[in-house]
């Protein structure tokens, strides 16, 4: 069975989805990816028990919807989409819990945004403007770190590990630097209008 690709295992499973033999193909398939899923979640959450719970949900969903897998995609990508969606659900739940808690707790120990020039921009213009200023002022790594942290709610150490950053302070240094550059860019932009 080792010689079969992920996609071949699924093809064998589909020949007789209810049989014991076909289940052994799925067991093999899932076991190949357990470390990947648990490791990914552990890195994102820093909580090994939560990582296992999330991983379990991913494999339940994967087994339930295996018949929707399209053969022109990679199984790893398909599994990633399930894992990513499950994580997004988990973040939504966390956010709704956080709304009931003091807001400061969400950004505890994060770089301060007090007097942030960005806060003064009209919300309707913000999206286009922030992206333009990011393109002008930030490096690709700074943009990616900012997006993962603020747009995807990722912890800084998780970003450091995910992007393989090797500098001493990891993602935090990129966040500090990016915010400083963005504040300067915003002030410059305000001076122009």
């Amino acid at each position, binding site marked *: 069975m080792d010689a079969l690709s992920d996609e071949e295992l699924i093809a*064998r499973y589909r*020949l*007789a989805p209810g*049989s014991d*033999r076909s289940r052994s193909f*799925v067991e093999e398939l*899932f*076991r190949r990816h*357990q*470390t990947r899923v*648990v490791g990914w979640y*552990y*890195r994102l959450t820093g909580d*090994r028990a939560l*990582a*296992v719970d999330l991983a*379990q949900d991913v*494999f*339940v*969903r*994967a*087994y*339930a*919807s295996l*018949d*929707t897998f399209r053969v*022109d*995609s*990679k199984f*790893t*990508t398909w599994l*990633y989409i399930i*894992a*990513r*969606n499950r994580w997004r659900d988990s973040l939504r739940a966390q956010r709704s819990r956080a709304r009931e808690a003091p*807001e400061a707790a969400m950004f505890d120990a994060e770089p301060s*945004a007090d007097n*942030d020039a*960005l*806060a003064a*921009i009209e*919300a309707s213009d*913000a*999206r286009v*403007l*922030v*992206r333009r200023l*990011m*393109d002008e002022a930030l490096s690709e790594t700074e*943009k*990616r770190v*900012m*997006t*993962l942290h*603020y*747009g995807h709610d990722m912890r800084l150490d998780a970003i450091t*590990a*995910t*992007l393989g950053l090797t500098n001493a302070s990891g993602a935090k240094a990129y966040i500090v630097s990016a915010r400083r550059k*963005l504040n300067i860019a915003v002030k410059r932009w305000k001076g122009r209008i």
Partner: protein
Amino acid sequence: MEGQNLIDALRPGPDCPSIERLGRYADGALSLEERRREEPHIAACPNCQAELALLQAFATPSVREDEVKAVQWGVGQLRRREPEIFDRGWLASSNVRRWLSFGSVRPALTLAIVLLSVVGGYYFTNQAAPKLPADLGSSPETTRSLTVTVRAPIGDQTTVPARLQWQAVSGAARYRVRVSEVDREELWSGDTVESAIVLPAHVRARIVPGKTLVWQVVAFGASNAAIAESNAARFRLVQ
């Protein structure tokens, strides 16, 4: 809210492709035209680039030294939960959902549960020994069940079986026997009016040590309608 403008700007926008579509983009599964349409946005969008970085990290995992213990523990836990994963996955599968949501099935299930409760309740309150029919053992060897009971071969065999045998079903005019590989690929099928059938030489030649084969019997009535079938029986030759 502090920094909310920044946060909103960095979240996925209406022009960002879905994660599913981004995955197909990463796999090279989009058509050339679709790829041309998506590429300029994906290349310039920090959100899409961040998504691709996450996918990349998932696709090429590397467990750091400080993560090894936790991940190994997690995988061990997950292995222990495999039966639950398959049970819950099966229950959540679209086929089962479709079946359970089929209008006429729900009342049938409810009725079945009520009947089980009544019958179960009766047996709980009437635990006297069941009465056996007086002529037990003298009746002809047939069943009236919807199931054909297979007799042999089942399980490990020390010699290549010459024939397949099952218990006759009352009202059966003929039987169809099907022999297949474990992946359900048919090797051979044959019809008979007896409750046994001889395996042809070319099928017997396929029975080799260690290889499991599956066989099943369907009984047909005089009107040529199927009236009973067996479970899939398995056997294999051991050395």
